[in-house]
């Protein structure tokens, strides 16, 4: 029932200070010599550690994630170096979600305000979902009425999860969402898993269906919704746009096989996320097939040796190349 174990030992401290030349310095010399060269792009993505000198501050300007010390641009976070002309910035690996217009996100309502909802989307600020950018019952072209404003909680209330698209930004950088598509809207029949946003790649479609009867919505903000598969034909249609179904809080009947598949997929995602493997449909599918073959229990997936196997089973399948 319960097992106690020890905290993992801190890594052995092998750092030496002062004597060694930092690995960044070689690059610096090179860069100073040929400033016009596309040093950052040609050598692929360059990773930094906090405090690493990137380049000279006389030739380049510091951007986000960097600071200047002793006439050098120094990374303040660990991440990838990005360059736009003379502007050097570092995009952090562990960070909150940086929204872009058109991104698909999964969010949670935190507040209901006049004519708008506030949505937590793992970003620096809460996103805004206007009443005017959701589909209301009774047809897409329907005008917004005062009665709609008075019953906003019948559409979304605090705590509700929804899938939406980033529509635009406000002046303060907060994002504005919309759910004006039949694919978007309230989420039910499943559970949420959170991963670092850096692990979600931009895919052709973020609505995945695994053959095990599980639908996945990979929000670019790192929120992943895993739910029972709903057939295309049974999805709420455009015609009699049914408020009951779209804004319903009731789950459908879910059989045990689907439930354990949902749990298994979410455990696989957790495992991959802790080992910082970017998520794509093929990786998930491989891991799932492997997990089913092992016939282990769902909770066994979180054990250490199994974790390694899950990672290994994907090795031949270009985890690191994509």
């Amino acid at each position, binding site marked *: *029932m*319960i*097992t*106690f*174990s*020890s*905290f*993992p030992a801190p890594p052995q401290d092998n750092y030496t200070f002062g004597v060694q030349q930092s690995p960044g310095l070689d690059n610096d010399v090179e860069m100073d010599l040929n400033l016009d060269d596309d040093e950052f792009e040609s050598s692929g993505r360059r990773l930094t550690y906090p405090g690493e000198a990137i380049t000279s501050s006389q030739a380049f300007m510091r951007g986000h994630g960097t600071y200047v010390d002793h006439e050098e641009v120094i990374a303040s976070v660990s991440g990838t170096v990005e360059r736009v002309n003379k502007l050097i910035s570092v995009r952090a690996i562990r960070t909150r979600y940086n929204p872009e217009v058109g991104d698909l996100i999964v969010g*949670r309502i*935190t507040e209901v305000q006049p004519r708008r909802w506030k949505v*937590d989307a793992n970003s620096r600020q809460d996103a805004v979902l206007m009443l005017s950018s959701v589909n209301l019952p009774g047809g897409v072209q329907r005008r917004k009425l005062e009665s709609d404003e008075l019953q906003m909680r019948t559409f979304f209330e*605090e*705590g*509700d*999860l929804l899938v939406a698209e980033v529509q635009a930004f406000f002046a303060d950088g907060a994002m504005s969402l919309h759910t004006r598509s039949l694919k978007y809207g*309230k*989420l*039910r*029949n*499943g*559970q*949420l898993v959170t991963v670092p946003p850096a692990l979600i790649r931009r895919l052709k479609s973020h609505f995945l269906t695994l053959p095990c009867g599980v639908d996945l919505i990979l929000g670019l903000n790192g929120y992943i919704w895993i739910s029972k598969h709903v057939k295309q034909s049974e999805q709420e249609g455009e015609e009699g746009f049914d408020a009951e179904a779209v804004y*319903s*809080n*009731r*789950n459908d009947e*879910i059989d*045990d096989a689907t*439930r*354990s598949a949902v*749990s*298994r997929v*979410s*455990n696989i995602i*957790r495992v991959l996320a*802790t*080992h910082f493997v970017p998520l794509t449909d093929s990786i998930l599918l491989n891991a799932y097939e492997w997990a089913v073959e092992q016939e282990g*229990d*769902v*909770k*066994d*997936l*979180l054990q*250490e040796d199994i*974790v390694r196997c899950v990672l290994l089973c994907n090795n031949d399948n270009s985890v690191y190349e994509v």
Partner: protein
Amino acid sequence: MAATSKSERAYIQSALHASPPLRADGRSLQDFRNVLLETGVSPLANGSARLNIGKNPEEGGGGTEVLAATKLEVEDIETGDGVEGGRLICTVTCSPAAYPQLSMNALDDLQYDYTTVLHQILSHPSLHPKNLGIIPRRKSWLLNLDLVILSDAGNTYDAMFLAARAALWDTKVPITRAVQYQARTVGETLRAVEESMDVEGVSPSGFDTRQIPVAADFELPDYWDEGEPLEGRDLWPVCITLNVHEAVHFLDATLSEEASVPSQFLVAFSFPPSSPSRVQAIRTIGSGELQPSHIQTLVQEAEKYARQLHTALNAKLRDEDIRRHQKAKVKFANR
């Protein structure tokens, strides 16, 4: 309380009633997440422990993390707040980082709630350690038990009690020796004479000093961080939280699971060696109602779980003692 939508709660609840019941991460109803425990984490405390429930070993964060530490303080019984035989005060602090959604006032309320439960249960006279007195009617130890909740991923009560038990287990009470001041015979100035209260040639201990009513003050014969363990450390209770939803109950709930059950049922058990287990406290949390007949079965079930928890924790604490003393000595010798 983590925000959850109605459909998420319904999903969790219906999964509990499925056969076999299934939870979000595939655990069965009686499974705990992985528990990490380390004692002696704080060098300046008399006893300390760090406990984490549900942390992924590869990850930096996650899980419910609780830090517990005890500190002994000398109190004067005649002039100060001290009481005969010493006393125990528990305090729980919640880190604002663990509850970013709560306002400062709400956080204070939460801390107060945790503190009350912990203090009421642990400072009960039936658990009082006997070696907290120093000099009868003069000096006694005040045992401060402080807990910090560093992050919350559900099941904080069990985590707090486990951490508190580990820290109290780890606590060393310094050995004291009573001293007496005597006036010298005429002609000499008053001088303090130390008198070892050594009865029958046994090594001096704090316990012996109680027999001597004339003792005025005390001294520490060895270093302040040495000493004897708290007496009756086997008695410190373990707490088990049963999350009750209709006829089903489960252990070690995550935040979203806690949000989807109407009531939680806390039972603290003490397992004295060579006598039957003792219910130290019962609390219900939440808005749900429990029928008396149901409570009876719950207590019986809880006793079973608590015993397993108690055995596992004791084994781990012994392991920790070995790691910190024997193995450390060997390591030091082989360095």
